């Protein structure tokens, strides 16, 4: 059965991810342009990070002038879900994969790659996973460059409106999570949003630290009110 888990098969199954990533990455390219990054910096950002919300968050923090420690910890926490996805993926992989190959495969872990790969009941090969991750990666990196270039011909009034992209992405994610998982999602997000606003506006805390504190507090609260966690993975 393992013969079907080829590089080509991975690319084939990853193509819908490519299609989905490209426009989102374009939005990221626009955000980078807005921040004053050069095109190679935006592309390098996507190549080295390859993480949707993590990158948008880092870009936002850079824009707000956060210190490096704030950026590091915030990004680490927002991407911590990859640890759980990676744990599942590494269990599904066939044995005997070398150290540097594991590191490369780990770099390709994303929400969408994970959700496609774990659908298979049999162990998957490194070639299949490399194809799946590779095509998704191509969509993300090329989309970033395309978005940056499109930004060069966009009128300035429209560029201000494009700043909403980041928030639109997160609110869309929240709406989809709400539809799938119910009211508790909204409650947890509302608590963290209110706490974050209070910490920034009233206590004048740094954006990154406020983010970390409110995110942690809301997830502890969520864990206390949630019995069955499997549905939140």
């Amino acid at each position, binding site marked *: 059965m393992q013969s079907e888990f080829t590089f080509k098969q991975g690319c084939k199954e990853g193509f819908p991810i490519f299609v*989905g990533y490209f*426009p989102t990455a374009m939005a990221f390219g626009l955000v980078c342009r807005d*921040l004053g990054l050069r095109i190679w*910096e935006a592309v*390098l950002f996507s190549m*080295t*990070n*390859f*993480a949707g*919300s*993590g990158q948008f968050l*880092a870009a*936002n923090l*850079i824009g707000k002038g956060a210190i490096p420690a704030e*950026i590091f910890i915030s990004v*680490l926490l*927002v*991407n*911590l*879900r990859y*640890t*759980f996805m*990676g*744990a599942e993926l*590494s269990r599904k992989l066939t044995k005997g994969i070398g150290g540097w190959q*594991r590191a490369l495969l*780990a770099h390709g*872990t994303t929400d969408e790659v994970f959700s496609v790969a774990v659908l298979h009941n049999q162990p998957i090969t490194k070639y299949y996973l490399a194809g799946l991750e590779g095509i998704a990666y191509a969509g993300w990196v090329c989309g970033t460059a395309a978005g940056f270039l499109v930004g060069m011909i966009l009128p300035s*009034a429209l560029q*201000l*409106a494009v*700043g*909403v992209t*980041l*928030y*639109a*992405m*997160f*609110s869309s*994610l*929240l*709406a989809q999570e709400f*539809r799938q998982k119910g009211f508790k999602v909204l409650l*947890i*997000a509302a608590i963290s*949003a*209110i*706490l*974050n*606003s209070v910490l*920034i506006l009233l206590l004048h805390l740094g954006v990154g630290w406020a*983010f970390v504190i*409110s*995110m942690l507090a*809301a*997830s502890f609260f*969520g*864990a206390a009110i949630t019995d069955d*966690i499997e549905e*939140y993975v």
Partner: protein
Amino acid sequence: MTDHPPFMIPILLSAVATFLVRALPYYATFLDRLPSFLSKSLRLLSVAALGPLIFPGVILDYNQSWYAGLLGIAAAALFAYKRQGMIIPILLSIGVTYLALLL
């Protein structure tokens, strides 16, 4: 050219943070043995992150026209609630915010 901000440091720091959480499960196995409360909290982090990723930024970024971003994300959220996908909600919110800024 010399006054270009040093973007490389935050970009690479963010990359290292992302890579650490990705590589960890490929090299360590203690994750299966975390206490259940901690495990639950960690899994909820991505949901808990969405609130502070939106507020108060979406209001503060458009200081005089504070409602512009709010209208934009409301449009995006409504559309995303009805249908899968991210492209149309994002484009819609850009359109709505653009109109709100013009008015």
